[in-house]
């Protein structure tokens, strides 16, 4: 078996002896700590050079590259000489490739992780090899080098600052003799001063496993920690210090917990047989690895107080006249001009929603509402780029006021690519709230069906027929999947037969118990349907002959503009037509100004933004026009967890009262009793 000695400059307390496996081969790795004694380190190398195949270094000052010059620390130089030709690896080449690689992997799922963040590095001197990556992401980088190397408690600002520091000090540092006294501990009272404060205030702390030993853990309170390797013991320590979350870049199983970057390099150098590791070897190995970064969230996370933002806008010209200061426009011919002029104005902070408090963990969140004074017409006719700019400047404002997530209300989520561009340009994640909107609509449909009481229900299962018009669309598909688990018979309708067939077979697989029927003609099954969901892009064209609809049917019209015209709706008072469901937020919610809904009821999409904030998931949960079944199910679960409930069901012209439902039911029962149901 090949022998590797991991020589660390630190304590012998962590000495180990382990057989590790890599690429199917076993290696004997021994960890020997030199107790901060360089002469001892050198003696160890001399003593064991003949017995081992490679040395992996840890805790030594690596080669410092400044411009074209490379400074090799005198200790490392001597160790390389003493190794009698055996390879001495420091892991730097691996880190240079692997850390940006792992960060990129993580950013795929959390793209705002680095946006506008301040990242603190305890020592840029040791970590310079991968710093350009972070610089690319326009993060604000701060370094503790002045304190770490020279004991001067001042934080270094940015790559430029670090370069200057290295340029001046590299010759000195490469000659500096390291010992226990030179290693500065960040728990020192000296770091608690004004000049060090920016460093301590950083959002993200990038630490390596070995740096944790001289890190003041209390500095990590409420922060995000990025670490190269996380042992269970360290995870406990960091969370005990009340850090919010830890991004573990290389989660490897505990049996191989001695596979640090220098050891991996040493193994590669040994297996390649030439004692030399090239960048290619490393790339090859990285490509093969299945390791993905993992985020650990603190379970005792400080509930704290998080803020979200939400963008609203007037839904019609007449609402412009409700904007404070513009009331005089009411009933004047100037209103049309005002609509146009207002749409050119930037958005502004409208009001606050306070007192939202999770039923689950009591976490309180506050929402800032921003008003973009554009009507739907203006939003859709103004140049898309201009609207994006207006939305993004609101995102900037919200970010500055401390919001961690922003939601797009009403038509702002329809403009252009439905949030994708806005999200890309925003400093904080953006969500459209579509997942909760859809969930709330389905809650409203169930509520309507239950209130009408014409469909037999047992064990949350409806013994009846439901029909989804526009079932192959994004919302339609999700509804079809959810409803196919709740209803006896599901009819899916869409204009293109091949798409219908595909969906039918998918649904049959998904819900084998349910009768699934596909058709291109909704009128064929409307007389037997108890629930009809329409979600089409028919742009107001008639999709359904309202006269054929079964009395007492509940129609959920999700399309905008509506599929069911007001005239059609008026013709069938015995049919309950729902446009959406609105929700109540948990807690003692106060909305400072009217947002067009009764009391403290809020839009479901706003609720999604608040819900994600309560959950602490600051991500672009819903984006684009696509909707995902998993996300709707997830948001449904989260809603129940934090206490978001359906408050009212909305029809075409506003809230549907209990009375309206009751009269609809009466009419339906009468009609069912008198009409001849076609067979």
């Amino acid at each position: 078996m090949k022998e590797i000695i991991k020589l660390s400059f630190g304590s012998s307390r962590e000495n180990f002896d382990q057989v590790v496996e890599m690429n199917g081969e076993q290696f004997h790795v021994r960890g020997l700590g030199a107790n901060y004694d360089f002469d001892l380190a050198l003696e160890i190398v001399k003593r064991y050079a003949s017995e081992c195949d490679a040395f992996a270094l840890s805790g030594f000052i690596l080669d410092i590259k400044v411009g074209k010059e490379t400074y090799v620390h005198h200790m490392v130089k001597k160790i390389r000489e003493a190794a009698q030709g055996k390879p001495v690896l420091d892991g730097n080449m691996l880190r240079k490739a692997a850390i940006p690689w792992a960060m990129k992997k993580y950013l795929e799922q959390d793209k705002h992780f680095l946006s506008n963040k301040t990242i603190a590095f305890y020592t840029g001197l040791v970590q310079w090899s991968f710093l350009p990556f972070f610089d690319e992401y326009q993060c604000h980088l701060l370094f503790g080098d002045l304190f770490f190397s020279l004991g001067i408690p001042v934080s270094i600002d940015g790559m430029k600052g670090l370069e200057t520091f290295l340029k001046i000090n590299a010759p000195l540092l490469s000659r500096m003799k390291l010992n226990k006294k030179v290693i500065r501990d960040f728990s020192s009272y000296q770091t608690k001063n004004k000049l060090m404060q920016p460093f301590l205030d950083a959002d993200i702390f990038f630490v390596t496993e070995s740096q944790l030993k001289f890190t003041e853990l209390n500095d990590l309170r409420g922060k995000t920690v990025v670490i190269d390797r996380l042992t269970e013991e360290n995870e406990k320590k960091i969370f005990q210090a009340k850090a919010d979350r830890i991004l573990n870049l290389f989660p490897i199983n505990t049996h191989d917990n001695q596979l640090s970057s220098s050891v991996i390099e040493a193994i590669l150098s040994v297996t390649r047989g030439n004692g030399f590791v090239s960048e290619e070897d490393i790339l090859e190995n990285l490509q093969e690895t299945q390791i993905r970064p993992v985020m650990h969230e603190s379970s005792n996370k400080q509930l704290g107080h998080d803020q979200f933002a939400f963008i609203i806008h007037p839904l019609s010209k007449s609402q412009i006249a409700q904007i404070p200061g513009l009331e005089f426009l009411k009933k004047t011919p100037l209103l049309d001009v005002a609509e146009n002029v207002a749409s050119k104005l930037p958005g502004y902070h409208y009001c606050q929603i306070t007192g939202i408090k999770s039923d689950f963990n009591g976490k309180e969140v506050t929402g800032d509402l921003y008003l973009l004074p554009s009507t739907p017409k203006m939003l859709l006719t103004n140049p898309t780029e201009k609207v994006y700019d207006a939305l993004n400047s609101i995102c900037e404002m919200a970010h500055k006021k401390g919001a961690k997530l922003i939601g797009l209300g009403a038509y702002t989520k329809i403009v252009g690519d439905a949030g994708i561009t806005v999200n890309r340009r925003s400093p904080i994640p953006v969500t459209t709230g579509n997942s909760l909107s859809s969930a709330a609509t389905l809650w409203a449909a169930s509520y309507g069906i239950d209130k009408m009481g014409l469909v037999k229900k047992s064990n949350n299962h409806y013994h009846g027929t439901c029909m989804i018009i526009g079932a192959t669309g994004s919302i339609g598909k999700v509804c079809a999947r959810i409803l196919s688990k709740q209803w006896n018979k599901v009819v899916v309708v869409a204009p293109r037969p091949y798409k219908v067939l595909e969906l039918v077979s998918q649904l049959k697989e998904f819900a084998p118990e349910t009768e699934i029927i596909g058709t291109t003609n909704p009128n064929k099954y409307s007389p037997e349907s108890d629930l009809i969901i329409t979600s089409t892009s028919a742009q107001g064209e008639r999709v359904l002959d309202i006269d054929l609809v079964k009395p007492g049917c509940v129609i959920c019209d999700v399309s905008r503009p509506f599929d069911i015209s007001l005239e059609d709706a008026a013709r069938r008072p015995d049919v309950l037509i729902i446009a959406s469901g609105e929700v109540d937020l948990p807690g003692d919610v106060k909305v400072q100004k009217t947002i067009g809904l009764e009391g403290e009821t809020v839009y479901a999409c706003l609720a999604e933004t608040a819900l994600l904030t309560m959950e602490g998931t600051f991500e672009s949960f819903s984006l684009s026009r696509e909707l995902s079944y998993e996300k709707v199910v997830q948001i449904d679960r989260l809603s129940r967890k934090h206490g978001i409930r359906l408050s009212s069901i909305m029809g075409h012209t506003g809230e549907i009262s209990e009375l309206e439902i009751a009269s609809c039911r009466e009419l339906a029962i009468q009609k069912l009793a008198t009409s001849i149901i076609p067979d």
Partner: protein
Amino acid sequence: MNILIIGGTGFIGQRLVRRLHQEGQKIFLLVRPKSIEKAKRLFADLSDITFLRGDIENTDLLADVGQTGKVSDQIDCLIHLAAVYQLDISPSEAYIQNVVGTQNVLKFITRLKNLRYFHYFSTYAVNQVLSGQVKESDLIPESSHFFDEYARSKNQAEHLVRELTPKSIYTIIHRPGIVVGDSVTGERDKDDGPYYFFNFIQKIKSLGKISEKLKVLPLPVESNSLMPVIPVNTLIEWSTQIILTPVERPITCYHLVPKQEIKTKDFLQLSIDLLNSPLKIVGISVSGMFPPIFKLLRLPEQLVFYMKSRARLDRSQLEADYPELTGPDYKEYLPNLIKAFLAK
């Protein structure tokens, strides 16, 4: 029991081997390949001892355990007392022998399938800087200050023993005090510890007339300084009893020192008296001055620590498990030590 002893040719080791052999135990000895002949001569009078080649400095401790067939399966008790002991040892020598050596033993342990007991010989000096009551469970951090590299390396090694020994094995840590010669014969290995002091007194005596005028001897001993001295034969008896009737706990540690506390001042004064010197010890506490003075007198400066140590070694674990182990009175055996010392 089948006992494998590492470090069986040393001062304490030799005696332990003979004592355990006398008790009828099957003894395996791990010996450096180059000293194997010497070891065989040393124990030529004992029958049925198996010699194994191996060097704890090497990664693969028992590289040629293959030659001994299934030996590794037979061992049910391992005693590790190999260590270099010198107060002026170099850091790298101490580290490689005592720390890496122990680490290699701990690795080797995992290959002994039937091992039940692991006896590790540490030293009371692992807690060098502590004063007052020092418990058997105490072990100061390896980053603490140490007066000599021996104590430092033994501290590091005991940390490794406590942390790396598989939990399925009963680990017993023997922490002897200052080991002096045989309480009956006075036989000893080398002149260290109190023997430095005996030599020193002899040197003063050899100065002739000047020494007669000297009435007092200022030393950095305080009235409450303690000297945990144990004669080698007592240590062997105690360790043998612990090895033959071991307590089955994951980790047990014993301070192997006599029940009766020995005041440094009293011990040294009695030594002076026995050496027929009129000197009277005067305790002073200007400790900063002593290292250079000791150097001048050719005494290891690390000795200062042993003189002014005020640690009171708690032996409650030992008393709970082996109440009969109380130890001899130094006043009774010190004359024997001095007699043997003078005879040399």
